[in-house]
């Protein structure tokens, strides 16, 4: 289009349709979420599903911009703990995590790395969040590659500022909280209780 083709309101409308204004933070997080470099790293049988299967042509993690698995933690920003972490491996995993550059994320994949799984014994750490921060837990034994990719998408949304929060209000799902059904020790915080009451009123109204 040449200069002078549009004027006045037509020009305003044209610009409005083609330009998006956003904050620098949001733009940065969008870029981070869609160019994750996972670490080439496997611990046990879950490694067959996560770092191996999901980069194959059948599942293809490249669709989400994460096909470049790095062999060095200094170039990676996502570590997937795929398998049980033995007490002898835990310092090594922690060191790998410490060597990764900020910003960095960690996915605990499967029952074993999330809670020890069936290995309730002297040799296995009962949950990887005992020695390093975990952003996301993927349940399963082992989780299917689809489950890992769903977790990966969740992580992307978390990086982009958690747009998933507030879904109970949007889906009229008040009352599905664990603590609302009279679960054990987890007591609701004051804000959570208020939010729950608000959501409940909105739902019932």
């Amino acid at each position: 289009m040449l200069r002078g083709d549009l004027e006045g309101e037509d020009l305003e409308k044209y610009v409005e349709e083609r330009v998006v204004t956003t904050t620098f933070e949001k733009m940065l997080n969008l870029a981070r979420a869609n160019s994750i470099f996972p670490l080439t790293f496997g611990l046990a049988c879950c490694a067959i599903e996560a770092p191996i299967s999901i980069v194959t042509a059948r599942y293809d993690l490249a669709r989400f911009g994460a096909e470049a698995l790095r062999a060095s933690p200094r170039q990676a920003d996502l570590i997937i703990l795929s398998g049980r972490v033995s007490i002898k491996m835990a310092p090594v995993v922690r060191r790998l995590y410490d060597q990764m550059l900020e910003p960095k994320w960690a996915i605990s994949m499967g029952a074993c790395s999330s809670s020890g799984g069936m290995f309730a014994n002297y040799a296995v750490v009962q949950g990887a969040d005992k020695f390093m921060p975990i952003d996301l837990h993927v349940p399963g034994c082992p989780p299917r590659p689809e489950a890992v990719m769903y977790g990966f998408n969740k992580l992307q949304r978390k990086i982009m500022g958690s747009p998933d929060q507030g879904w109970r209000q949007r889906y009229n799902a008040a009352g599905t909280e664990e603590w609302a059904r009279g679960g054990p020790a987890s007591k609701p915080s004051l804000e959570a209780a208020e939010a729950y009451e608000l959501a409940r009123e909105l739902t019932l109204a």
Partner: protein
Amino acid sequence: MPDGPGLELLRGEIDVDAPGAVLATSFEKERAVLIVDAARILDVLAWLRDTPGQGFRFLSSLHVADYLPAEPRFGVHYELLNRERVERIRVKAMLPSESPEIASCVDLFPTANFQEREAFDFFGIVFTGHPELTRILLPEDYVGWPQRRDFPVGGEPVTFTYSEKRYG
């Protein structure tokens, strides 16, 4: 593998060269076992290895079992193999629960090096004369002998809200 009478003949032959070393024999489930005095384990192993006509020159496994209520409590098992005749024999020495010690057979069978370290790692059996008796699989600073039967299982109890609501 020697059969029942063959095992008794073998015991008689050992008794000639090392009197009193073999305490008993057992033949169960097609497996010949020589139960020997722990203090003289090296005599028996060397005899089985070096005597002409025996030739148990291969130590296929060395492992330990914990028979907890029993005393003596630990059984050290040596699985010997004659590779010419494909014949196996098990030599077993019992050790007490208080400071279990037995002579190392690394000089006879170099493969025993790592296997004795593993037995030390998990059961706390001390093999005297071993070149480097340190932990092999567990971390160096680990405390305790986790494969002993009186070692706590470990892990953490997991509570599920469903069970608590329904059965609590």
